[in-house]
């Protein structure tokens, strides 16, 4: 086998594939956390526009949701790379 065929026929190990998948999953978790922060901001904006009895509960829910999203990133890092 020539040197050229070795260079241009990449051999990707299955371990590398799973590493890429794990990294992608953690990245998805981070994107979800960013999305949850946008939800917090948007709920604050909307509850300032229309003030209802439910507004404090919605705000609390959005903050808890962002906290859970952050927890899931840590969970993913823990059991995917731990």
């Amino acid at each position, binding site marked *: 086998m020539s040197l050229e065929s070795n260079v241009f026929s990449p051999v990707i190990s299955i371990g590398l594939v*799973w590493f890429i*998948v*794990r990294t992608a*999953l953690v990245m*998805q*978790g981070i994107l*979800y956390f960013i*999305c*949850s922060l*946008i*939800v917090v901001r*948007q*709920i604050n*904006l*909307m509850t*300032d*526009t*229309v*003030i*209802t*009895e439910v507004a404090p509960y*919605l705000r609390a829910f959005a903050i808890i*949701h962002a906290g859970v*999203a952050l927890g*899931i990133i840590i*969970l*993913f890092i823990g*059991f*995917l790379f731990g």
Partner: protein
Amino acid sequence: MSFKIFPAFFDNPENIKLGQQEADEHIEILLRQHWFTNVPWLTVVFLGIIFPFVFSTIDGIFINILPKVPGDIVMAVVILWYMLMTAYILEKYLYWYFNIYIVTNIHITDVAMTSLLAKTSTEVLLEDVQSVKTKVSGVFGSLFNFGDVIIKTAADAQDLSFIAVPSPDFVAERIQDLRALVEPQGGHDVP
């Protein structure tokens, strides 16, 4: 018929206020889209919730790919799937919850959360209202009594549409009554 989880019609609500409400202004009607408009996305949510179970069952019978994937990755994908379902539910519910049509004794306001990053608010004076039209269409609209209320305003003001609101005829009549109350008490043209 309405579900408490999807409250869509408030007549003279006492505990709801607009952020920039005037001192002598009070809300007469607050509307959201009828609860039935949530059925399509709720169906998607139901299918999304059962999808992992259906997929694992089908995989066990025909494809058999899951045993070849590391367990931690399968678990992470399942968690991520349900996170995305939660995001979908949140986005749809908030979109419904914050798309509000408000009729006060002075204004008609349409507050809309167009996406997670955008908000629009359209306000017209009641005295600028020229005509109010209702449109109930479709089997479910007739069955559950919801439809559109189209409010035509003076030429320089923007028209408003209340989409798929409960009891559109009642809403239209109420807007016309309020319009009559704020109508300037000028003299009539002499023929």
